[in-house]
């Protein structure tokens, strides 16, 4: 009955979209709903960001010919029993300045579509999917829509729960590249398999002791034709990884090693050296106290399904997690965030969290939390190979840090909630930041920066709250000092008002003492939210999960709408 209502027979998805899964999406839905009492469920969401640009030469803000930019997407997911299908429409007419991180997105069309079905313990997905093995060092297809990072696979995926704690996954496909009235794909084929064994499902006695050991192994390869007239390039590049996790009530210990066979590509300057990486993490936590240690090394681990990919954001087969703390306050988060150096780095970090108990002397009514974090990242200890006839590039000792420090961050945060329910968060950050290496600004000196941040939130009356943020950055390098002030007034559950000003002073050019005021109003109802901003937005780096994109300075009106249904 649904089919006849829609006249599905007159639609020709093949010709319109040249896409098999989309056709399947409609036909399977019509089959499944036809004449059955359970129509299934539709879920979806919508996200629209739009900006109208003003010219502002003081901050270097430019206006595109269209005067505005809009990024919009909406997902529709249909589920019925063990069946699910979904698609996402996307529209960039044109995309906002500085978006996306990699290949341009333009036009309107379908950016993602899939069908999926479960038969007992087997799950089959056809079309687009996201997947990750272990920490992602050899395989992670994922999306960060806000950044415009999307390396979704398009192909087929199987997930199988073999029982007794054994989980198997397999995937084959090509990756999303850019967007031109629909997503475009890269030239390389990615093939990936993974097995994970949970020992306490295999040996229930372990579970009784509250312990668990998980072992995992994966193999990933890519195929890309060799059209190079000079070099003999490997058309199939394989990589493998092994991992282990041990947990009990207090400890959580994880280790993963990855190895990649020779993969000459643009990112590594076409060297034939194998790549390798290792991630180590250990955490201990009990109520009110936790500490964690982490270390990793990445050596020649850039892995893209096109060896000539135009940027480091495109067609990544893997993901190299940074181990530095992602800051949440505006100045440290958007001026000097760290991004992994896939060609080589060695990093270390440590965390400590302690909560003074409620009703203790230092804890007060609600408890007081202190958190300390330290991270440092270095170059690889490597030496170039003289007369490098095999194009191996360099030699390095495993897990050995070099002399050059890329990044260091020491930060301490104190969080206290008072009797009147007001809250105070004090943060101090000391940072060393090699902007030449991290942001690719050759010749710029290493930045030594200190940040102090006061964040105070106070309820004024029932459901009315005022939050004030003061941030200061001291540095003699880059653009000099910054001061940021924010006042945010909320009326629960609906309204949100804020005024933000950022002021840059003490830089090398005295005349450039620039203010960046920005006002915002937002309204939320249920799963819907609208926010309107007007003012100057500072050029900066917008990061999610350790991947960052440059956002240019802008002046004007912006609107952001999100909705979930």
């Amino acid at each position, binding site marked *: 009955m*649904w089919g006849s209502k829609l006249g599905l027979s007159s639609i020709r998805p093949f010709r319109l979209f040249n896409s098999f899964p989309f056709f399947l999406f*409609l036909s399977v839905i019509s089959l499944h709903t036809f004449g059955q009492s359970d129509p299934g469920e539709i*879920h979806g969401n919508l996200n629209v960001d739009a900006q109208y640009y003003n010219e502002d030469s003081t901050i270097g803000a430019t206006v595109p010919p269209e005067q505005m930019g809009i990024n919009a997407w909406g997902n529709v997911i249909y589920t019925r029993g063990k069946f699910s299908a979904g698609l996402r429409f996307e529209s960039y007419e044109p995309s906002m300045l500085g978006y996306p991180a990699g290949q341009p997105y333009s036009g309107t069309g379908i950016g993602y579509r899939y069908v999926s079905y479960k038969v007992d313990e087997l799950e089959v997905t056809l079309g687009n999917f996201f997947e990750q093995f272990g920490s992602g060092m050899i395989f992670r297809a994922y999306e960060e829509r806000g950044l415009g990072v999307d390396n979704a696979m398009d192909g087929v995926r199987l997930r199988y729960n073999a029982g007794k704690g054994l989980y198997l996954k397999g995937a084959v496909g090509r990756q999303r590249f850019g967007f031109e009235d629909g997503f475009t794909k890269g030239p390389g084929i990615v093939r990936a398999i993974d097995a994970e064994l949970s020992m306490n499902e295999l040996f229930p006695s372990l579970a009784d002791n509250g312990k668990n050991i998980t072992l995992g192994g994966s193999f990933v390869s890519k195929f890309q034709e060799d059209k190079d007239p000079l070099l003999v390039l490997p058309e199939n590049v394989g990589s493998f990884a092994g991992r282990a996790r041990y947990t009990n009530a207090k400890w959580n210990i994880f280790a993963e090693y990855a190895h990649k066979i020779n993969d000459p590509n643009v990112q590594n300057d076409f060297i034939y050296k194998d790549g390798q990486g290792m991630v180590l993490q250990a955490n201990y936590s009990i109520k009110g106290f*936790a500490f964690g240690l*982490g270390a990793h090394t990445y050596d020649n681990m850039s892995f893209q399904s096109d060896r000539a990919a135009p940027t480091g954001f495109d067609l990544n087969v893997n993901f190299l997690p940074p181990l530095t703390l992602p800051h949440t306050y505006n100045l440290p988060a958007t001026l000097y965030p760290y991004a992994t150096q896939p060609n080589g780095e060695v990093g270390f970090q440590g965390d400590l969290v302690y909560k003074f108990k409620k009703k203790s002397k230092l804890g007060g009514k609600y408890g007081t939390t202190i958190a300390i974090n330290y991270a440092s990242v270095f170059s690889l200890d490597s030496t170039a190979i003289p007369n490098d006839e095999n194009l191996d590039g360099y030699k390095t000792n495993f897990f050995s840090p070099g002399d050059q420090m890329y990044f260091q961050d020491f930060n301490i945060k104190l969080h206290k909630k008072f009797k009147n329910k007001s809250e105070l968060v004090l943060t101090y950050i000391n940072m060393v930041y090699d902007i030449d290496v991290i942001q690719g600004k050759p010749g710029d000196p290493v930045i030594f920066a200190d940040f102090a941040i006061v964040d105070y939130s106070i309820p004024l009356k029932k459901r009315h709250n005022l939050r004030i943020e003061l941030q200061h950055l001291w540095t003699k390098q880059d653009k000099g000092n910054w001061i940021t002030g924010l006042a945010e007034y*909320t009326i629960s559950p609906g309204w949100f008002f804020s005024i933000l000003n950022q002021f840059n002073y003490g830089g090398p050019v005295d005349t450039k003492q620039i203010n960046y005021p920005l006002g915002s109003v937002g309204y939320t109802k249920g799963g819907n939210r609208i926010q309107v901003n007007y003012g100057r937005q500072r050029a900066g780096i917008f990061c999610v999960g350790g991947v960052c994109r440059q956002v240019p300075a802008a002046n004007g009106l912006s609107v952001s709408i999100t909705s979930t249904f």
Partner: protein
Amino acid sequence: MRIFFSLFAFVFTLSISAQTVPSAIVQTIEGKKVDSKTFDNDGKPFIINFWATWCAPCKRELNNISDVYEDWQEETGVKLIAVSLDDSRSAARVAPYVNGQDWDYEVYIDINADFKRMMNVNNPPQTFLVDGNGKIVYQHVGYAPGDEEELYEEIKKLLE
């Protein structure tokens, strides 16, 4: 364009009655795989909250609820399921944070964002209230202090 309209027509003709929690695999902090479809609270309502260790308003919300959580549980039997959207970069920080803050929530990590996609979450924090029959009856996006009071009123409505 015709197919777009057909699709929209299709979406709206389907009865969008009460929604249930869809199926996706999430992990416990210990690494055990759990199907979100099996989330329940013995016939009592429960909350699903999406958060992340890098999300300041998320932590503010869960810390504020934590201060009243004992009272909520005593009075209504409600349970809060906190689903972390931390990826492999920060997933290792989840257990230390949760324990460091002394939270009593049921915590999962949605490392591949499968559950986030199935629940159509745009940005955290986002909160869903599920009634005793497994139907999603209320949701809220973002956090402002006081939002937890509205959530609690919604929970109490379910028990009337």
